């Protein structure tokens, strides 16, 4: 599985080619000006989100989730979630995107990060319900129910472009890329990574930390033209 990911540093859409054509056609309908420049994924997502918030266009929602739904499902399944539950979580996220589209601000976060955060939080809330954790103070679960941010006034340094960041992850030293992938995607603790790779624990920690520092340094904001 790793190889498959690593050999494709460029973003690969899982949408079949004929769907892409259809999507592009529909996107043009959402676009206020017609130019022939190809849209970046971030621009496409931002336009679709605007179609939802301004026109309540279910087609736009459907396009977003045809694109990201299978990715979110893969992410949830890699967490040990069964397929049925994963789709329940995604459906819940879809409803959130539908009703909260007005709160999405492409200046502050990319759609990918926004929908990732929603999915992560819904999954943690699903775990809370599953473990029957009793909540005495209803307000405290708001953080799990929404795209909650601990400090709303924080000056976001959020990366707008998931593909660019992704290629930056692959521009790190190979050993850093490998360890970051294990830590963030394979749900492995530093101790487990050390065991599997045979590296000393301190080396694992240092490589992951320096890799993340490097990425943070390179994260820049892209302008999104709407």
């Amino acid at each position, binding site marked *: 599985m790793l190889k498959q990911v690593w050999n494709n540093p460029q973003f690969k859409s899982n949408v079949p080619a004929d769907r892409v054509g259809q999507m592009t056609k529909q996107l043009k309908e959402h676009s206020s000006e017609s130019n022939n420049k190809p849209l970046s994924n971030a621009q496409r997502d931002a336009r679709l989100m605007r179609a939802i918030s301004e026109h309540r266009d279910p087609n736009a929602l459907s396009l977003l989730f045809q694109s990201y739904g299978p990715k979110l499902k893969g992410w949830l399944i890699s967490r040990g979630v069964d397929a049925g539950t994963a789709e329940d979580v995604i459906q819940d996220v879809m409803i959130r995107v539908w009703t909260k589209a007005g709160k999405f601000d492409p200046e502050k976060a990319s759609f990918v990060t926004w929908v990732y955060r929603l999915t992560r939080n819904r999954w943690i*809330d699903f775990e809370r319900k599953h473990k029957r954790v009793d909540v*005495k103070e209803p307000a405290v679960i708001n953080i*799990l129910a929404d795209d909650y941010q601990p400090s709303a006034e924080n000056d976001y340094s959020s990366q707008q472009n998931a593909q660019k960041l992704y290629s930056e992850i692959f521009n790190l030293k190979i050993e850093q890329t490998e360890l970051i992938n294990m830590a*963030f995607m394979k749900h492995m603790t530093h101790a487990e990574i050390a065991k599997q790779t045979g590296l000393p624990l301190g080396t694992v920690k240092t490589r992951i930390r320096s890799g993340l520092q490097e990425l943070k340094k390179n*994260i820049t904001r892209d302008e999104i033209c709407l």
Partner: protein
Amino acid sequence: MSLMTFTPEYDNLIADYAAGYLSPAKHMLVSCYMEMNKDRHAECLAYEDVSASLMANSTSVDLSDDFMRRALAALPARETITEDENATSHDVAAPGYFNTLGFNIHDTKWRKVTPGISIKHLMRSPEKNGERVFLFKLQGGQSMPQHSHSGQEWTLVLSGSYKDDGVEFNAGDLQIEDGSTYHAPVIESSEECICLALTEGPLKIRPLLPRMLQPLLGL
């Protein structure tokens, strides 16, 4: 300002939060920690971008054939959607208000358990060694009964300060202790100290009187 004393497995706390590896209770407590430590929140946003980017480029699993039809059919009607449902009656700028808690710690109902100690339960897992999250408030000059833990104890100072084993913890500081030591945090100043705490399983309280009270306190 921020002090973290961690057990070794938690030196990666912010990245673990971003990747979604923390339990619901720990996720909530770390969220509150970042609300008080904006630089750590900025760090978290970068990690969330990394996590999201890896998610967007990882292996897809096809949705069921009828997923989209079902999901679109389940959407709430346009006219029922209200955008400002999060409007709150709280003064969010007032000192003591926490986004993560959704209320002001200086303006909420407490349960007085001794003349100097009050608590407020927030979350509780039904399992014997499950996580409990609660607020506690100690008057100036008070000390917690000497105690240890069945599992970990996380303490985030929301206001005031306390001293534990010679180390001072101030607002925004997070202390993570495992179950290996007995300790008795002390409020040295005259100002009250309010903390958000998370424990795994019941506390092991040493002095007899508080131990007898323990079932009543639910700690």
